[in-house]
């Protein structure tokens, strides 16, 4: 059932994009977080995607050529990005150092928003693919009417 495989593939895409959206939301929510458990300001996170083969080994055997090539996507890990914190002079802040500087997370709001749009579009593309697969399957059912 290729259409079902196609839907599974799109589902992995949707899951991955949703994780990415969650991480972006986390970055946005923590854009001004100066305190974390590790004692540093919040560090920006990014998701790393990797493609992975779909289907059971048995299916792959049945359909050698396609089985291996049809690939879904998965999140390998969520990575912390370096500590190039923004240094702002604010002596009144409780987290200011001896010189009166506060370190803020290395988050660029515009960049996060752009990534968010990108993730949303990718998600939508996967949704469209699922809808198309569903439409096709329903159309195939009509043959029997």
């Amino acid at each position, binding site marked *: 059932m*290729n259409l079902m495989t*196609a839907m599974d*593939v799109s589902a992995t895409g949707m899951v*991955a994009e949703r994780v990415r959206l969650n991480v972006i939301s986390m970055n946005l929510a923590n854009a001004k977080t100066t305190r974390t458990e590790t004692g540093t300001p919040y560090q920006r996170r990014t998701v790393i995607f990797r493609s992975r083969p779909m289907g059971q080994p048995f299916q792959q055997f049945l359909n050698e050529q*396609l089985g291996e090539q049809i690939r879904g*996507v998965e999140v390998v890990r969520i990575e912390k990005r370096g500590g190039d914190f923004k240094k702002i002079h604010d002596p009144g802040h409780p987290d200011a150092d001896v010189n009166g500087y506060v370190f803020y997370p290395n988050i660029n709001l515009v960049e996060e928003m752009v990534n968010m749009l990108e993730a949303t579009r990718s998600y939508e*593309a996967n949704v*469209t693919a699922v809808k198309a*697969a569903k439409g096709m399957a329903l159309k195939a059912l009509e043959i029997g009417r």
Partner: protein
Amino acid sequence: MNSRSLSFGNWVGRTVQVLSRSLDLRSQRHAVISSNLANMDTPGYKPLELTFEKELQEALGQGGPQPIRTHQDHLPGTLDEAATIQPRLRQHQDYALGNGSYQLDLDREMARLAQNSVAYEVTAQLIARKLAGLRLAINEGGK
């Protein structure tokens, strides 16, 4: 999986055989396009393309005993090969950047997706029509 072993192929007609193989190939193509879309943001992923139009054409034009065509515009008569058409899967050259890496073009891929699913629906409809025609012949034939 020899489709000729399905003996009903003989009376249903080869049209249905070809059309159902075409449905099969289109659903495979849909899976390939879905795979490209799911991996849109995967670094290093190479978009794939499934082609079978040429193979379908070739299969329609050759193989098995062929009726003599008295005019070049006549349709070729043997369609048996259609059921065994093997599609070709390869890296999508439209998206190659030239340095060995690939960049999926979302609009183009969505257009291909839409085109493929419309073609699938048309094909399914054609099969349904063909079968409805047969049903009509069966029902009306005894009257």
